[in-house]
């Protein structure tokens, strides 16, 4: 059973704004799931529907096997949530806030000490009022409050916003440990490198509609990579190789784009006197941009049709 299952989940604000349209996904236990899309794509709306902050216009969602609308209190007891651009009680100290928010769960915060240490939140920092905190410090407190009670599921909205690269790395380490511990992470982001680095699967939303959902590794494997080959003598014949496009040969330099399996391409190079070969690694960014280019928008506020790699319409995509 999925940790999060949505079936045709939709949310309209009035008649004009369709924030989320027919979202059907299933998130598996123990995975780190990336929810990707630009600002305004519907990521935060989806999260707020899962937590019961919003009421769906259509469809339904279950979280940890519980109905997101009817059982939202029971869900929130087992979930850790980091809102995007978190607001805090500025008059409290960092420590007082963490104590207060932990007390509201009515149970201990077993992960706090570890999180505080890994995110380098010193004791004297935690004793200062939150109004004195920088944006990055506030984000660290946000991460700690979301994870300190060791939730079964963590829903993190733009978790590395405001963190410096070192702290981002520390945060990714925390996610790796949570994965090992069997926790499920639902991570919303528009930072592609982040999703590529930590997520097992990724859903891409655009204008409220799901445009792709698949393994990050599979998505990257299918992406178009740029290839350059410097040859001595005659250039190899690559025209007929599967996945090759945009072939240009000039002054001993062969450049092309390669999509899909690399083996036929390498086989075609056998016999050629190759002086140098560069295959640029595939990045999610290209995948993301390609998907966006493929999915034309239909009308204001509505997304276009999902491309062929999107799962079946009407049921959760697994």
């Amino acid at each position, binding site marked *: 059973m999925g940790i999060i299952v949505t079936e045709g989940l939709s949310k309209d604000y009035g008649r004009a704004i369709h924030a989320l349209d027919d979202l059907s996904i299933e998130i598996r236990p123990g995975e780190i799931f990336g929810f990707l899309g630009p600002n305004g794509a519907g990521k*935060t709306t989806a999260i*707020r529907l899962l937590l019961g902050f*919003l009421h769906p216009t259509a469809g339904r969602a279950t979280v940890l096997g519980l109905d997101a609308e009817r059982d939202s209190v029971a869900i*929130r007891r087992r979930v850790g949530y980091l809102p995007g*651009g978190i607001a805090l009680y500025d008059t409290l100290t960092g420590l007082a806030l963490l104590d207060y928010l932990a007390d509201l769960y009515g149970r201990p915060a077993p992960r706090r000490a570890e999180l505080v240490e890994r995110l380098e939140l010193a004791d004297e920092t935690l004793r200062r009022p939150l109004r004195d905190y920088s944006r990055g410090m506030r984000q660290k407190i946000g991460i700690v409050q979301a994870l300190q009670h060791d939730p079964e599921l963590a829903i993190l909205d733009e978790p590395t916003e405001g963190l410096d690269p070192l702290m981002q790395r520390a945060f990714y380490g925390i996610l790796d440990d949570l994965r090992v511990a069997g926790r499920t992470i639902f991570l919303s982001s528009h930072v592609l490198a982040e999703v590529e680095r930590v997520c097992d699967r990724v859903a891409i939303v655009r204008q409220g509609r799901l445009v792709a959902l698949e393994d990050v590794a599979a998505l990257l494997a299918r992406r178009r990579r740029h290839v350059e080959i410097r040859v001595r003598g005659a250039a190899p014949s690559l025209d007929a190789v599967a996945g090759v496009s945009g072939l240009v040969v000039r002054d001993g330099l062969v450049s092309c784009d390669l999509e899909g399996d690399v083996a036929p391409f390498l086989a075609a190079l056998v016999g050629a006197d190759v002086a140098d070969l560069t295959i640029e690694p595939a990045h999610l960014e290209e995948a993301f941009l390609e998907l966006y280019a493929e999915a034309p928008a239909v009308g204001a506020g509505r997304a276009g049709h999902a491309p062929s790699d999107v799962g079946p319409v009407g049921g959760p995509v697994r």
Partner: protein
Amino acid sequence: MNPTLLLRTWRAQRAKLLAVVLALAAWGFCMPVIYAAYGAQFQHIVDSGLIPRQMTDLLSDIGGGNIFSLGGAIALGFIHPIAVALICVFAVGFAASAVAGERQRGTLEVLLARPISRRNLIVTLYVATVGFIAISFAAFMVGTALAAGLWGVARELDPVALGALWLNGVLMFAAFGAVCLAASASFDRLTPALGIGLGYLLASYFVDVLGSLWPDARGVQPLSLFHYVRAPAVLAGRLDPVDLVVLVAVATVALTYALIRFPRRDIAAPS
């Protein structure tokens, strides 16, 4: 009700509560002192016929109080704009900002990410509001009783009647608090919630004062919540249970509205 949230709310308001308590205690202290110092002199002047009876009747009617008796002086202080303004720090200010203020600051979603139902949140905030009002009014009563004892007029004061006035006053402002909390639960911004709460209180006050000054307007006085606190009568031992029932009914309706409306609302991301 959530004890952790209630405790945190009390802690957050403690400095404000202390200031209001001290101010109301001082204000309550003034009433018996003024009565003891000037009440008899005013009565002599009135009895001398220097001031027309119609004028003194009018003065004794304003707000239901006068300074020619201890009960009247306390009643005047009780519904005086200074006392009303001080109580409104909680009955209007706190109640109106309790939900809408958190929403505007963006902290509501941090709170609601915990396992607290929205109804639980409303009930907890209302209990806090009524508690603040009760303590504030108690401070007024303590100040009054203390001054009455120190100035030698305590025998004119019935402690049971003073308690009844405290209950009557707490229920009236608890009704205002419920209306303000209902407004707070209905808006994403503080300004409209505060505007509705304050507007309702000012309109109520105006209608009551207007009715007491202008006989033709007495018919609209029941529309005002202030009409249901008849302080001189209460201090004379004549508390009308119907007044309490009306105030409890208003509070119940407003609170019920908040308990139905708030869980049905969408809490969109803070803008």
